[in-house]
């Protein structure tokens, strides 16, 4: 088609072969050029000799506009690309196909379009360049797609927000650098199930709940504790979005984790709430009681998190008092809420049950009813309950999986309150083995949560004995003074990993 074309052109005037080319175009001889623009020009001055009618669509100019304007290429090209337009003419002498990518401005609608232009020489019989021709292809949509992809890639790589993409089976497919910064996991996590990031902090139902939320609404958001590569855990506000395919089927899940800066703001707000919650929790603790034959007081030092410690005491009749101290499994708002729910029941349960066996059985029944789902235990608590009879000078107690309380007698001997049962809420039925102990006037009863024996070195037994021995020299102090001493002792250790609570009852 091109080679030797010049000889044919010489035989006719421009109009004649221009008509010929137009006819060929109509006959679809320029296969594949329906949307492209084909043109032929003189090499010396770039004068357009022929241009296909598709130029109307691409340039917003008719072929006649091209034939009549020697500066048409400058007119349609983007100002920033004028240099490229100038460059293309001297290159024709190279006889090779020259490819240029540049922008043009559609003269009709003013839009900027990206085109690629392939230019090649039209040779005569001896191989000299006689004409030049070109094919211009509109790349705008491809360029836009490329730009969007590059933008998405740049955003994915540079955004401070950690991102993770899984397939529909929650197998990890993609992560970004911020995710690596957050979790420590790099490309080695690709192909792993999402469970690798689970901390064990939540039960399986929680993840089912999240998945259910995504299925229902296409999105789920909330704060989740994720496991990092070094084994620690980290809480992040997380949004999970379902990405559907063209048929509406789930193709991917996109996980967006809040940035550290967002998290700090969020944490500040949560800390305010927690401070308030801790205050509420403190206010439900029993106030000191002083009656004939008994004085009771307690202290509570919350840990960094909201905790699950609680104590309370009630006069049952003129000679009996029920003293209770509990510690819910784990920390956080859930433990605290369970604590408060037990607190609301406690008065009724103790006044009705009175003795340890009945009190624990009734609490166990409530816990199973409230927090036992689908045959599985979700929460439990340890507790110690002591029924003091000031007239008989007798205590009856039971410890439900709780560290043993101490009964310090005036003669210096110490009894451990180590009989009882498994923690409350763990088993369908409790077999409570309660203990009874007599006391002499001047005895001191000390109950405490396991915060008192955490963080020290040695075995659990050694820690219990160390705590008992630390109490012994101060045991004759008034209950409030003894508790102040304990508070000072624990306060100097800095922030506690667990709540610490203690109850001291001076028995006359």
């Amino acid at each position: 088609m091109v080679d030797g074309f010049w000889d044919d052109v010489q035989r006719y005037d421009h109009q004649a072969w221009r008509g010929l080319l137009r006819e060929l175009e109509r006959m679809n001889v320029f296969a594949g050029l329906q949307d492209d623009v084909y043109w032929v020009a003189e090499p010396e001055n770039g004068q357009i000799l022929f241009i296909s009618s598709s130029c109307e669509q691409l340039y917003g100019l008719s072929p006649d506009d091209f034939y009549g304007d020697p500066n048409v290429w400058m007119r349609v090209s983007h100002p920033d690309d004028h240099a490229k337009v100038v460059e293309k003419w001297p290159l024709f002498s190279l006889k090779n196909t020259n490819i240029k990518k540049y922008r043009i401005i559609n003269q009709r609608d003013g839009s900027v379009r990206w085109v690629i232009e392939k230019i090649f020489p039209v040779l005569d019989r001896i191989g000299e360049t006689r004409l030049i021709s070109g094919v211009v292809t509109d790349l705008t949509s491809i360029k836009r797609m490329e730009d969007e992809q590059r933008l998405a890639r740049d955003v994915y790589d540079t955004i401070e927000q950690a991102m993770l993409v899984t397939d529909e089976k929650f197998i990890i497919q993609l992560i970004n650098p911020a995710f690596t910064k957050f979790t420590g996991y790099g490309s080695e996590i690709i192909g792993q199930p999402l469970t690798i990031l689970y901390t064990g902090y939540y039960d399986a139902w929680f993840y089912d709940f999240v998945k259910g939320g995504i299925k229902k609404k296409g999105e789920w958001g909330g704060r989740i504790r994720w496991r990092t590569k070094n084994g620690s855990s980290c809480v992040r506000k997380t949004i999970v979005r379902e990405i559907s395919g063209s048929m509406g089927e789930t193709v991917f899940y996109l996980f967006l984790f809040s940035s550290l800066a967002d998290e700090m703001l969020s944490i500040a707000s949560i800390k305010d709430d927690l401070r308030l919650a801790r205050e509420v929790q403190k206010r439900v603790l029993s106030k000191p009681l002083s009656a004939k034959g008994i004085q009771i007081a307690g202290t509570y030092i919350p840990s960094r998190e909201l905790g699950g410690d609680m104590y309370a005491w009630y006069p049952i009749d003129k000679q009996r008092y029920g003293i209770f101290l509990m510690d819910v499994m784990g920390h956080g708002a859930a433990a605290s809420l369970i604590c408060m729910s037990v607190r609301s029941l406690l008065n009724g349960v103790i006044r009705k049950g009175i003795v340890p066996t009945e009190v624990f059985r009734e609490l166990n029944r409530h816990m199973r009813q409230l927090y036992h789902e689908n045959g599985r235990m979700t929460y439990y608590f340890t507790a110690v309950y002591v029924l003091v009879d000031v007239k008989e000078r007798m205590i009856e107690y039971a410890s439900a999986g709780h560290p043993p309380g101490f009964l310090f007698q005036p003669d210096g001997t110490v009894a451990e309150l180590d009989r009882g049962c498994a923690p409350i809420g763990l088993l369908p039925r409790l077999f409570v083995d309660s203990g009874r102990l007599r006391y002499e006037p001047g005895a001191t009863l000390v109950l405490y949560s396991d915060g008192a024996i955490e963080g020290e070195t040695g075995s659990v037994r050694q820690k219990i004995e160390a705590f008992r021995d630390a109490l012994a020299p101060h045991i004759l102090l008034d209950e409030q003074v003894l508790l102040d001493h304990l508070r000072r002792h624990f306060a100097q250790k800095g922030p506690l990993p667990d709540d610490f609570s203690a109850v001291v009852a001076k028995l006359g």
Partner: protein
Amino acid sequence: METKQEAIFTLTWTEDITLNNIGVFRQALKQLLSEGADQLIVNMEGVKYINSAGLGMIADCVMTARSKQKELVVAGVTGSLEEIFRIVKFSSFMKLFPTEKEAIDYFSGE
């Protein structure tokens, strides 16, 4: 690590059970319960600490096993681990053994 000895199936767990590996421990127990054997041993020899969530899981598995006419016992309960189990009074509803051999002997009726 799991070993099968006729009708007895043993899960050997050697790490302390903390927040960091509690999810893996849960999965391991779940797998143990799904085994065909009726007599299940969790050998915790070498474990010095188990957190409250881990204790809850063991208790839960003991009850689930019981509901399936199976029995789950814990072996390797010595030292610090024994103290923890004693405080929470797990011996009131399940069998605890110092060694795996004693657990196997128990199941074998010896």
